[in-house]
């Protein structure tokens, strides 16, 4: 349970960090809440760790029109405690309670969670739900294009995620976030997040994202379409179960995950509908 040897560098500018990442086997160290356990288990053995926590101005939550811009080094707990997040994106606030435990939320960063890309983690699904843009040292990537597979992102080896941009939600958008985990704070067996806009009691815009039941976070477009076509929540939940390809593992079988996605989709949509104005 001890990590292998590595060189350590703590640059104070993004330019220096990017330059250091051109070394073979170099890796960014952000909060270390995924990287350090993996190194302790010796699943990873980078030769150089580039600690980006001493680079100034990477942790912030800033209002941008109706939306928000959040720095990649912002800790989960800072998001959990932020008033402006609670007002504008209550779904983010609610989801933070499901991300690990207090001591891990104090250290873990949004950027680290997104770049690690665990399909059962909350942030990758949340950025997809909220149609966020991910700004890096090279370009800006729409959330929908960020993941290639489990733990696989579109980032180059020497590219650093610096900011996540959340466009404002339409007034009256309702939201739901439903997760099932074995123990409080564990990664999700499955989770479903949804937003709904209503007009004359009819759904005009629906987004549904599933977490933990597919190789990447996934938008359930068929289920979304059934709601905007005024079919029932039950039918949307049935469609959701067909859109995913869950895996079996130690914690749950694929069948059980599929069943959960049906139940959680129903609950998330019902909650979102109720909250929509």
């Amino acid at each position: 349970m001890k990590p292998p040897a590595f060189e350590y560098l703590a640059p104070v500018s993004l330019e220096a960090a990017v330059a250091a990442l051109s070394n073979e086997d170099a890796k960014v160290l952000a909060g270390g809440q995924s990287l350090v356990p993996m190194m302790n288990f010796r699943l990873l053995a980078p030769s150089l760790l580039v600690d980006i926590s001493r680079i100034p101005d990477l942790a912030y939550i800033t209002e941008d029109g109706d939306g928000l811009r959040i720095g990649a080094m912002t800790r989960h707990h800072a998001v959990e405690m932020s008033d402006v997040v609670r007002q504008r994106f209550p779904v983010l606030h609610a989801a933070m309670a499901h991300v690990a435990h207090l001591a891990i939320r104090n250290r873990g960063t949004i950027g680290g969670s997104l770049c690690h890309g665990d399909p059962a983690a909350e942030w990758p699904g949340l950025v997809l739900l909220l149609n966020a843009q991910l700004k890096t040292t090279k370009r800006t990537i729409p959330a929908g294009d960020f993941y290639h597979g489990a733990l696989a992102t579109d980032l180059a080896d020497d590219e650093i995620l610096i900011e996540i941009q959340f466009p404002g939600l339409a007034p009256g958008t309702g939201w739901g976030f439903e997760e099932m985990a074995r123990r409080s704070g564990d990664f999700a067996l499955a989770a479903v997040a949804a937003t709904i806009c209503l007009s004359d009691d009819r759904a005009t815009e629906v987004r549904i994202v599933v977490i933990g039941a597919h190789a990447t976070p996934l938008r359930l477009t068929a289920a979304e379409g059934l709601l905007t076509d005024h079919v029932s929540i039950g039918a949307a939940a049935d469609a959701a179960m067909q859109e995913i390809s869950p895996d079996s593992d130690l914690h749950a079988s694929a069948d059980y995950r599929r069943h959960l996605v049906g139940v959680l989709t129903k609950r998330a949509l019902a909650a979102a509908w109720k909250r929509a104005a």
Partner: protein
Amino acid sequence: MRYLEAGKRHTVRFTLNGRAVEGDAEPRLLLSDFLRQTLGAFGTHVGCEHGSCGACTIQMDGKAVRSCLLYAVQVEGKALTTVENLATPDGLNELQAAMQKHHGLQCGFCTPGILMSLTQLREEEPNADEARIRDVLSGHICRCTGYDGIVKAALDVFGDVFGKN
């Protein structure tokens, strides 16, 4: 820009419980091991070394953190506090005394970490209710108590009046 070579020891300086300390560490040395083996501060316990059990929880700059998920070299210049900092010159602090009163510990392996997390919660949410306290305790594995004594102890010092006995 600080660059530290692999396999060599480098001096690390920070404050521990208000006192300036220093010691030598290879980059790969975990903070939990540095505290116990280099500095001889044994109050912080080590269980799983992957962030799950909570035994190694300390505070850095006022926030609870897992010392097994930090390298000692990362805490250069930071202010750390450990369970050794909680007691006052007059004896146990309120939370510690409540833990004793309500049998919130048996073997005591989990206790230092639990105290460090509850200390942050009390500062940030002095009126946290039982559900919130249990949520925070879920980040700590206790194999002895069944948690009830710990919850009672916390409710005794947090604002909730209903849980008091």
